[in-house]
């Protein structure tokens, strides 16, 4: 009965609620994208396709977006895959510490990376460019204010997401397959390319789709590094369109929704690839995840792993620390004057502590409630035979395809028109975060769900286990790496969320990321750097405490 109850009622209810959460604000966005009259009248007085047609007349912003997103995705997945392979499949000194450090870039708001790399590789006076020119070169080593620079920063920070998603798949892989390859005479590289890579294809594909969609909607790097170089992408154009007067919501919504095309194509390709192969690596045969001994290669591999950490974590944090301790932000060494006043100012701001607390509350609650819910959704989509599950996957992925700045507007219009008094409260932010992070959770868990052989679950059922018992004793333990990864990703994504929060937070429900951006836009770079470092430290401490608690509760390494 309980099984029937769950499958008969809970599943459709879950699909209905999650579908509604996504489709309801989307309907507002679609209507607004067709608004060709007064942009501030809602519902629109005049409807038409002019906003979409305008995009075709001026496709530069769309092509810029696709260019940067493609370069950044390739780089991020490459970084993520290499790091995941080194840290999960090989034995190198300090592996555990490196794995923890790999999460750090994701703890920081993307604005940090962009600001820090502006300090390091800004044209003429970036710190690295100064060092480069001091060795006799007359030109810059690299100008970060270019499309390649934007893609580089985006890739460094999203590389961590790719790492978490891919390493979750790699951890769930039977090492005997790699060992068989080695026994049959294949080298380490050949084994990695011919065995490891195809077996973790679902994880890699999930990561690629997710990272690409994140890149399409990425704002901070393009905002900080693109505008000085007069290079505009969809998100920066949306920022300008929504902030101008009269606001051009119609054009912003049309631009945001136009990214659907790219996303539908990506998702279609992914489904096509998945249909043509079996990616099951967790079968009834017992195995223990084991890493390879790589002999003398361990030092070059360790250098590569540390190289990424240095470039993605240590250099940006160092640049930011330097900026945060300056009286005024400068990269010219003789001009630098140091002070701790920025930290004092940040700590004195009465709104900062509640913003930190709200971000933490939201991060923990959205991740804790979201992961089981999304886990069940992933199981329904990839394991059950519920009709329309493909459509459901598509619907859940929609928030990833629409820039959050635009989706935030849709959520604002949608929820403010519901006669439930949650506007301006943390409840609404929680619901909004859950909605926009559905794709992140689904993609992370999907990578592992696809690796679990259904025969294991069938075996449990044949042995008389109920659906619930089978989920608890077989499916969930096998999905544990994916669920932990999803929890971590959703927690951190919530803590650093910006696009949706800008429109949904209220005076009594402030969160930290918009406060940092506001400070950068209106106060000073040095104060923003201090606030950003405090946020990073807060997330790091929170994650460390949560993992310690998890370890105590489960008695196993998290």
């Amino acid at each position, binding site marked *: 009965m309980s099984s029937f109850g769950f499958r008969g009622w809970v599943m459709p209810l879950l699909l209905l609620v999650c579908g509604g959460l996504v489709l309801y604000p989307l309907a507002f966005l679609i209507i607004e994208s067709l608004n060709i009259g007064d942009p501030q009248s809602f519902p629109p007085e005049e409807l038409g396709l002019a906003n979409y047609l305008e995009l075709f007349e001026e496709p530069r912003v769309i092509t810029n977006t696709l260019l940067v997103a493609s370069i950044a995705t390739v780089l991020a997945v490459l970084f993520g895959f290499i790091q995941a392979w080194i840290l999960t499949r090989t034995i190198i000194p300090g592996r555990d510490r490196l794995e923890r450090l790999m999460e750090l870039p994701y703890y920081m708001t993307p604005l940090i990376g962009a600001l820090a790399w502006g300090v390091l590789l800004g044209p003429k006076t970036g710190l690295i460019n100064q060092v480069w020119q001091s060795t006799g070169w007359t030109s810059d080593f690299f100008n970060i204010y270019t499309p390649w620079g934007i893609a580089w920063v985006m890739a460094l920070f999203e590389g961590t997401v790719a790492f978490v998603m891919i390493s979750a798949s790699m951890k769930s892989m039977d090492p005997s397959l790699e060992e068989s390859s080695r026994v049959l005479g294949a080298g380490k590289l050949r084994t990695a390319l011919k065995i490891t890579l195809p077996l973790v294809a679902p994880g890699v594909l999930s990561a690629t789709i997710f990272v690409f969609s994140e890149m399409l909607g990425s704002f901070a790097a393009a905002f900080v590094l693109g*505008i000085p170089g007069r290079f505009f992408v969809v998100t920066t154009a949306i920022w300008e369109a929504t902030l101008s*007067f009269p606001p051009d919501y119609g054009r912003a919504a049309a631009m945001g929704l136009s990214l659907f095309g790219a996303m539908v194509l990506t998702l279609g390709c992914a489904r096509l690839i998945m249909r043509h192969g079996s990616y099951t690596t967790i079968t009834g045969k017992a195995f223990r995840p084991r890493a390879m001994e790589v002999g003398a290669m361990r030092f070059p591999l360790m250098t590569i792993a540390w190289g990424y950490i240095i470039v993605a974590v240590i250099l940006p944090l160092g640049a930011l620390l330097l900026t945060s301790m300056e*009286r005024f932000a400068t990269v010219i060494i003789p001009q630098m004057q140091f002070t701790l006043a920025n930290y004092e100012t940040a700590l004195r701001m009465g*709104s900062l502590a509640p913003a930190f607390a709200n971000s933490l509350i939201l991060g923990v609650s959205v991740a804790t409630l979201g992961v089981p819910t999304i886990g069940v959704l992933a199981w329904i989509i990839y394991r059950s035979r519920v009709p329309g599950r493909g459509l459901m996957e598509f619907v859940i992925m929609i928030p990833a395809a629409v820039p959050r700045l635009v989706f935030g507007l849709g959520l604002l219009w949608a929820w403010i028109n519901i006669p439930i008094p949650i*506007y301006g409260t943390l409840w609404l932010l929680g619901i909004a975060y859950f909605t926009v992070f559905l794709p992140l959770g689904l993609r992370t868990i999907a990578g592992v769900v696809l690796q679990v052989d259904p025969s294991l679950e069938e075996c449990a059922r044949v042995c008389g286990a109920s659906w619930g018992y089978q989920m608890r004793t077989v499916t969930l333990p096998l999905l544990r790496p994916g669920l932990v990864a999803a929890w971590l990703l959703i927690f951190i994504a919530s803590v650093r969320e910006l696009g949706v929060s800008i429109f949904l937070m209220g005076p009594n429900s402030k969160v930290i990321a918009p406060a940092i951006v*506001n400070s950068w836009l209106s*106060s000073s770079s040095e104060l923003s750097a201090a606030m950003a470092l405090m946020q990073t430290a807060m997330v790091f401490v929170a994650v460390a405490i949560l993992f310690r608690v998890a370890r105590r509760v489960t008695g196993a390494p998290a």
Partner: protein
Amino acid sequence: MRRLAPRVLSVVAACLLATAARAAESCANPHQMQGFKTCADIGTAEREGGLVVYSTDPEAASESVLAEFHALFPKINTTYFRLQGGALYAKLLAERQGQAYLADITQLSDMSFAFDFQKRGGYMRYISPELAAYKPDYRSTPDGYWTWGALVVAGIAYNPNLVPADEAPRNWPDMMNPKWADAISVKVTISGLQHTTWYMLRQLYGNDFWKNLAPSKPHAFDSYVQQFDRLVNGQDKVAVTAQYSGYLLMKAKGAPVEFVYPPDGLIATPQPWGIVKEAPHPEAARLFMDWFLGAPGQTVNARFQCDYSARDDVDPPPGGAKSSTFKLLTPTDWKAFEQSHAAYVREWDKLTGMR
């Protein structure tokens, strides 16, 4: 007679309501407080216990301003909410459309927003006793909807380490010199201050004035923070539409920046402040507006925000020149200014590489 009675009753009721409304809008005998007058009932304001301000001003400085008000009225807890002008106005309108009234006071960075908000009936009318200190041009028509709570002033800034004083621009047309190519910054199209600068300098020098800047490919930024950061780092040599408040803050920190006061005038854009209709704390909002528009509030605002007051009896921001020593350029025909917006967006987007 039976038909007349309801009409008489309704007229009497309307008169009573109008009288009550007028009483709320203004008063004959305001209370004299420390340095300002108020028509607000302080007991009621304190019982309301809160005040929510929506504004575009920097958060740290705004919290300091509100802290001063809170120190005077400790029973009124103040909350501040900051967003960029367009986003803030979008949020305010969406909230009103959804009947979610969270804001008591609003500061909109652009006059266009204020006119629009007034047209939509968004402001609560309140004729502060402090309005007498403001010139009629600095107040809404009719009085009591919004008032210029501050003036944001802008000119030209440069880095003296890169540009010797005798080679620095002296007046607005000097920024057209090709020597500033790829080393000059302006603000992005969405900036209200940039719109004012574009409008006023076209009025001064002709409609083709800005076309001469295009070959220099100016870099456009959302905020003065980025403009001054690039200036001190040598990535740009000159910043146009450089906010005076930003210059004062940077100068006080010892940054290598200098400011040019063009003899033809500095650009000044007003910040309209007003009470939001359906404010959740209306009496506290009236009390705050009286304090803020009074000399104490304006002095505190000038000190923390480094903006100028529209009152004549308030000192300039710390380190700032007296406003009487320079000429201010502000639109007088606001309707023409509003109508120029589409042409401005077209030209500025093109000039800054946005389109």
